[in-house]
């Protein structure tokens, strides 16, 4: 497969490439991790995960690269440079769904395996896309985080973004679907903070007043979860009301420290970089084929099952609590 793809590149290069391919067994597999921009904590952490995967696989060289600002043009330049370098695989977190497609198509024509991760590329521009998680997994995780702290059951309320936020509405819907699995947990209401710090704060305060015996506030939005934690601290209800949901470690470190939030979740960039590298390796070495329904192993993260759009979800959102917050708060 590799050989035929390489031949595609041009007859003039064929002889050289054939010898190159024969030597491939000893040469390391070169996987380029292309990120939205260099210098972003989230992606630096992903690169760390990629190095971990490379060390585990042994015969892999990771090239961590990206533009200096988050533009599609910058990424296209980087991708063209990688094509010229004849890397074996490109794993990209795209700044634009469509703009990268022509460059990535060219890469695939030259026999380079292409996957997207985190932020996807249109299907024709990649072989598979790795989502950090999926809506059902997120919906389940946010209620699980609240329920885990309430073994006896209890009342929880949801603080969402706006009434029309698509992501939040889907996650809350998925949460309600699995609510039956958590015995004794009652969702008493959903309020909307419009992703404004002051309105979210007021709504959280209102929830604590309306339901004096409230046990947890679930906020699947980064502005809301921070504001709710602040409201709980100011109301003197730390320990009574647990704030949980989706947030970033850097933003939530204060709330974990004060005890207003026991735990929260978001994707783990290290795992994401690790999985992307594993998947790219599988495709580059022809050990796996990216087609709907395929199950591709990704080391310690299990297997990725591709849907009809050749997309897959990596895992449950990663849980952050006082045991690991210090490690991650400097990362993203």
């Amino acid at each position: 497969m590799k050989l035929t793809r390489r031949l595609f590149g041009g007859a003039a290069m064929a002889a050289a490439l054939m010898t190159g391919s024969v030597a491939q067994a000893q040469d390391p597999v070169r996987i380029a991790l292309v990120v939205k921009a260099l210098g972003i904590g989230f992606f630096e952490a992903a690169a760390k995960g990629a190095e971990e995967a490379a060390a585990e696989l042994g015969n892999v060289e990771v090239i961590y690269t990206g533009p200096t600002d988050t533009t599609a043009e910058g990424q296209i330049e980087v991708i063209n440079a990688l094509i010229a370098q004849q890397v074996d695989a490109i794993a990209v977190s795209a700044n634009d769904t469509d703009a990268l497609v022509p460059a990535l198509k060219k890469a695939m024509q030259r026999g380079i395996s292409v996957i997207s991760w985190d932020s996807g590329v249109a299907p024709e521009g990649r072989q598979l896309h790795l989502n950090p998680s999926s809506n059902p997994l997120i919906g389940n995780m946010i209620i699980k985080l609240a329920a885990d702290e309430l073994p006896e059951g209890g009342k929880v309320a949801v603080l969402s973004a706006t009434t029309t936020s698509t992501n939040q509405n889907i996650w809350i819907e998925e949460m309600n679907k699995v609510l039956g699995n958590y015995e004794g947990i009652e969702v008493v209401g959903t309020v909307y903070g419009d992703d404004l710090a002051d309105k979210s704060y007021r709504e959280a305060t209102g929830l604590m007043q309306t339901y004096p015996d409230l046990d947890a506030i679930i906020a699947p939005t980064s502005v809301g979860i921070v504001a709710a934690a602040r409201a709980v601290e100011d109301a003197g209800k730390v320990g009574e009301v647990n704030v949980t949901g989706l947030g970033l470690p850097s933003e939530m470190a204060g709330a974990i420290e004060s005890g207003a939030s026991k735990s929260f979740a978001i994707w783990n960039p290290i795992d994401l970089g690790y999985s992307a590298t594993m998947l790219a390796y599988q495709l580059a070495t022809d050990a796996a084929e990216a087609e709907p329904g395929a199950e591709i192993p990704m080391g310690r993260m299990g297997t990725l099952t591709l849907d009809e759009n050749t997309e897959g979800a990596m895992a449950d959102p990663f849980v952050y609590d006082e045991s690991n917050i210090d490690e991650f708060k400097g990362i993203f």
Partner: protein
Amino acid sequence: MSLLKSREALLGGAILLLLALIASRFPGFVAPDNLARVFTDTSPLLILALGQTVVILTRCIDLSVAANLALTGMVCAMLNAALPGVPVVVILLLAVTLGAVMGMVNGLLVWKLSIPSIVVTLGTMTIYRGIIFLISDGAWVNAHEMSAAFTGFPRAQIAGLPVLAWFGILAAAAMVLMINRTPLGRAFYAVGGNPHAAVYTGISVGRTQFWAFTLSGALAGLCGYLWVARYAVAYVDIAGGFELEVVAACVIGGISIAGGAGTILGTILGALFLGIVKNALPVIDISPFWQMAISGTAIIVAVTLNSRNARAKGRIILRKAQEQTEGATA
């Protein structure tokens, strides 16, 4: 004067009625503790509305207050994150100064270039927000990066009320004094009421408007620090759209958009009215889908009541003038 008094009395009555209505559904709302909390929550709105009142009195409008607040807040937060040792007093002074400078930019453009204030402040609003993005790179300043003194100051209790509430009370008291007892305070009314007459009495319209914007900016800057410290987070979009609430508080309070009419007491009541509505809606179990509609209706009802009061006065003048012209032609 009796007309103005009755307008404030009407609004005061509306607030009491509102409180009674809320108490019938959620009695805990009118507990003294909670009312103090609501007042504290309303203080930033009140302080900004006081500044906005002065600007509106001079026939201008300041749409950049929320952006000014956000930029000052971000600067304070970044300073605190970088140098946690800087005392809160210095940060407060910096906030007021920075806010005043941004207000002066508005004021100078309105004064020296005679650009309509709505255009000037619409522009500076976007510019200030843009600057936040430039200095912060879009990143947040988070609770754990701020010092305890920085976030603790607005919520420190003095005589049972948090400092944030005291700032609201002090600002209101100072503004009442300034408006009623200083030449500048009277000049705001003169400039808004009749700019031509003001010029003949030796008041510079542009200079008065400049000071109005400076005052509004300084108060917005003060709120910038208080806001960021209260919510313990600073990012580009804080207080997004808040300028409209500020203008609404003034309008509900009976400050005429045409300038020159309205009282500080009206603004205070207007801000309290909005603050009570905003704090009550989450606890009285009304669908979030209705909340915005209810807030909007409250504004329109209040303004209608105000304008009905004002209209009676205008009609009489017109009728007299009409009779006179009719008499002259006949």
